[in-house]
């Protein structure tokens, strides 16, 4: 099964004073990443940097978990060894955004976990959200993804909304196949398309839901 992971952070839900305390951020950032902030990213509010890196690490973990179902999430052990920022910030976000591949002008990162290397693309939409997709493949051209704002933020509404968003997209892409989202016993989701299993990644935080998958070759 192909490896993909995504993560979404609702920026209105984060505790900024707590994020800025060493007790908090040292549980997410490695020493080298703290240095990276001061040397290259200090123009960005620190809490944005912390949660950007969290979303990259969480996405990488979700990706690796598909290959290693018993893997534990180790934020400090999942190290961002390369990070570049877009030249222009994105100020606003529509209620729904879906795409395939990423604009060249996004956050690009390289992640190292033990001996494995992963790649991620992230976007910060103004003061609304951070969205990341991670993969073992540096080419994101065939990665399909989507983000939507939902009115209700309870777990059932999030779960229903993200599945519906994903399946609507896939049904168009796979022209009417019978599709169902299932979960592996270790928790990662996949979609059955006839005889095949397609790895997907689902995410939600407060009023935002997101999905990502590698578009199946037709």
């Amino acid at each position, binding site marked *: 099964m192909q490896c993909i992971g995504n993560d979404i952070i609702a920026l209105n839900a984060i505790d900024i004073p707590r994020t800025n305390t060493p007790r908090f951020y040292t549980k997410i950032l490695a020493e080298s990443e703290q240095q990276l902030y001061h040397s290259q990213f200090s123009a960005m509010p620190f809490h944005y940097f912390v*949660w950007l890196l969290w979303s990259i690490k969480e996405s990488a973990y979700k990706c690796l978990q598909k290959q290693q179902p018993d893997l534990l999430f*180790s*934020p*400090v052990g999942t190290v961002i060894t390369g990070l570049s920022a877009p030249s222009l910030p994105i100020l606003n976000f529509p209620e729904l955004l879906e795409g395939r591949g990423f604009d060249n002008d996004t956050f690009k990162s390289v992640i190292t976990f033990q001996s494995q290397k992963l790649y991620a693309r992230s976007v910060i939409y103004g003061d609304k959200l951070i969205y990341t997709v991670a993969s073992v493949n540096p080419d994101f051209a065939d990665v399909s993804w989507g983000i939507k704002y939902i009115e209700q933020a309870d777990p059932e509404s999030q779960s229903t909304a993200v599945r519906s968003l994903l399946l609507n997209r896939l049904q168009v892409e796979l022209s009417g196949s019978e599709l169902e989202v299932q979960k592996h016993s270790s*928790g990662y989701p996949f979609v059955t398309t006839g005889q095949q299993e397609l790895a997907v990644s689902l995410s939600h*935080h407060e009023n935002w839901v997101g999905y990502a998958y590698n578009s199946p070759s037709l």
Partner: protein
Amino acid sequence: MNRTEILDELKKILAPYTLDKEQLDGINEDTDLIKDLKINSANLVDIIIDAEEKYNVEIDYDDAEKMIKVGSCIDVISERMSA
């Protein structure tokens, strides 16, 4: 503090982050923080810090990554308290 006492206190720490309040009433050592209590992973560090403050211990990231189920949280807290 025995494991039951730690569990009772842990329940109070988890409460503000738990989106499935009914599950919280019936938690046991097998309860999974994310799958059962629907705690968003973005709150896991908050829970670790709240536990550090509550029990006056320091939980490093090697211990933190084990805190997936209520039972493993109690293991880490009781080990740190007796360290």
